[in-house]
C-alpha cells in the first residue's frame, strides 16, 4: 500500500444560499481545490462525490458526472457515495483506498448538500430516511429524536447534564464566530443555550446542528508525488470506515457508537499513534451529545467523562485537546453530504497553519470523525504534517 497525501483543499462558505444550486456549490469547491494544488481538470483521474440526498432535496440524480462535467472533468470514473451524514467521509475512504492501491494517482474527492430550499419539516423527513423507515421512523422518530433518546440514556447512565451539553454548543459557537466560512458566526451564552426552544426533549434548538448548503473538496495523490503539486503536503496517516446496525433499537448500548470505536482503533493502528498523541480533532457534533460521546469513543476520555471534560473547558481552543476549532457542525453548519470532507479541509487548515484567528498552538497531528445516521457508518481519519 502506498502512502497517500492531501495536495489541495477547497471549500465554499456553509450557509443558506437561496440563489445557489447544488452543482454550482460543488463546482466552486472543486475548482478552488484544483487551483490550490495547481492542477488542471484534465489531470484528475477520478472524482469521488459524497452526497446524502440530492435526489430528494433538489430532484437531481447522476450527480458525480453531472458536477465533474461542469468542471471539465470527463472520461474518468465519477461516482456518488451515500452513507447518510458520513457520505463524503465514505467517499474519502474509498478514494484513498484507490490511490493507496495504485489504481489512480490524482483523485478529487468532494462532498455537497443543498438543503435550505425545503421547509424544516420536509428536511426533517428527508433526513429521517437515514434511519429504519420500517421501524423507528414509521413510529415517528426524527434524527433529533434519536439523539435525544441517546442523550436521555447517557444522562441516566453517567449523570451527564444539560449544562455539559450546552457547554459544547457555547464552545462551538465561540469557535465558529472566528471562522469566515461558518454558517452561524454568532457567540451564544450558556443561559441562552439552556433555554432554547425544545426540538426533542432534552435537546433544544441550541443542541442541534444547522440545516445548511455547502460543498468541500480535497485532492489526493501518492505521497511520493506530492512535492510536484504543493510545498505543504499533508500525510494521510490513518483512515478507516466501519458500520453498525441502522436502527437505534437494535444496538445493545446506545450511549456509545460501536462503529466509531472500531474505526478509531483501526485508524490509530494504521497511523501508529494512540488517542493521547492526537493534538486536535474535528468530531461529528450533529447534536451536542454526539460530541460528548465522540470524545469518549475516540478514547480521549473514559466512558462517561465526556460531559465533565467539555464543561471544564478542556476542548476549547486554549484547552489541552481542542475539539471542533472550526465551529463544528453546530456553528460552521452541516450540509450533510459535505461534512466529512469539510472536516478534512478544517484539519488541513490547522496543519498548514492557515486557520487564522482559530489557529491552534499544537497543530501537527489531527483527527476527524464523521458519523452517518445514528451510528451505522463511521469514518475516522488521522492526518499529519508530511
Amino acid at each position, binding site marked *: 500500500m502506498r502512502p497517500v497525501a492531501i495536495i489541495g483543499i477547497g471549500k465554499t462558505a456553509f450557509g443558506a444560499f437561496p440563489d445557489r444550486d447544488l452543482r454550482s456549490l460543488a463546482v466552486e469547491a472543486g475548482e478552488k481545490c484544483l487551483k490550490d494544488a495547481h492542477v488542471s481538470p484534465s489531470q484528475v483521474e477520478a472524482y469521488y462525490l459524497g452526497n446524502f440526498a440530492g435526489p430528494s432535496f433538489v430532484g437531481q440524480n447522476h450527480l458525480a458526472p453531472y458536477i465533474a462535467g461542469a468542471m471539465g472533468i470527463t472520461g474518468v470514473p465519477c461516482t456518488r457515495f451515500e452513507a447518510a451524514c458520513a457520505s463524503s467521509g465514505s467517499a474519502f475512504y474509498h478514494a484513498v483506498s484507490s490511490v493507496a492501491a495504485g489504481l489512480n494517482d490524482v483523485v478529487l474527492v468532494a462532498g455537497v448538500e443543498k438543503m435550505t430550499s425545503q421547509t424544516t*419539516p420536509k428536511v*426533517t423527513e428527508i433526513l429521517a430516511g437515514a434511519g429504519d423507515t420500517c421501524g423507528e*421512523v414509521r413510529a415517528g*422518530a426524527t434524527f433529533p429524536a434519536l439523539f435525544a*433518546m441517546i442523550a436521555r440514556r447517557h444522562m441516566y447512565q453517567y449523570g451527564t447534564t444539560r449544562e455539559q451539553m450546552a457547554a459544547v454548543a457555547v464552545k462551538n459557537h465561540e469557535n465558529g464566530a472566528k471562522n469566515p466560512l461558518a454558517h452561524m458566526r454568532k457567540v451564544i451564552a450558556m443561559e441562552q443555550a439552556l433555554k432554547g426552544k*425544545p426540538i*426533542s426533549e432534552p435537546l433544544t434548538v441550541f443542541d442541534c446542528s444547522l440545516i445548511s448548503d455547502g460543498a468541500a473538496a480535497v485532492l489526493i495523490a501518492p505521497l511520493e508525488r506530492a512535492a510536484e503539486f504543493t510545498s505543504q503536503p499533508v500525510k494521510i496517516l490513518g483512515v478507516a470506515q466501519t458500520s453498525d446496525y441502522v*436502527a437505534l*433499537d437494535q444496538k445493545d448500548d*446506545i450511549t456509545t457508537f460501536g462503529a466509531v470505536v472500531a474505526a478509531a482503533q483501526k485508524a490509530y493502528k494504521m497511523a501508529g499513534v494512540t488517542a493521547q498523541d492526537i493534538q486536535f480533532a474535528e468530531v461529528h457534533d450533529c447534536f451536542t451529545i454526539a460530541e460528548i460521546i465522540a470524545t469518549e469513543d475516540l478514547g480521549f476520555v473514559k466512558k462517561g467523562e465526556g460531559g465533565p471534560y467539555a464543561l471544564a473547558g478542556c476542548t476549547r481552543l486554549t484547552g489541552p485537546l481542542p475539539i471542533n476549532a472550526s465551529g463544528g457542525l453546530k456553528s460552521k453548519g452541516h450540509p450533510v453530504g459535505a461534512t466529512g470532507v469539510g472536516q478534512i479541509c478544517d484539519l488541513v487548515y490547522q496543519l498548514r497553519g492557515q486557520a487564522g484567528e482559530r489557529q491552534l498552538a499544537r497543530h501537527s497531528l489531527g483527527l476527524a470523525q464523521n458519523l452517518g445516521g445514528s451510528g451505522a457508518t463511521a469514518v475516522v481519519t488521522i492526518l499529519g504534517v508530511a
Partner: protein
Amino acid sequence: MRSGVVYTETMVHAAPEQFVADAPYQLAIISLEEGGRLTARVDGERVAIGDPVEFVGDRNGIPFFRKA
C-alpha cells in the same frame, strides 16, 4: 408483545412532515419482556426510563404503549 420497560424516551416537538399534526408526542424505546427492543409511541401519561409499560395496540402501523 404485551409488556416491557422504558429503555429511553423523548418528547418530540419538531416532527417530520407526515406527523406535524401529532406533535408534541412521546417516543420511546421499549425493552420487551419477551426480549429485544422496539421503538414505539407512548399513549397517555408521560413515562421515564425504567417505567413499566404495556402494549395498547397498533394504529396506522405504529405500536403504542402506556404506563402499566
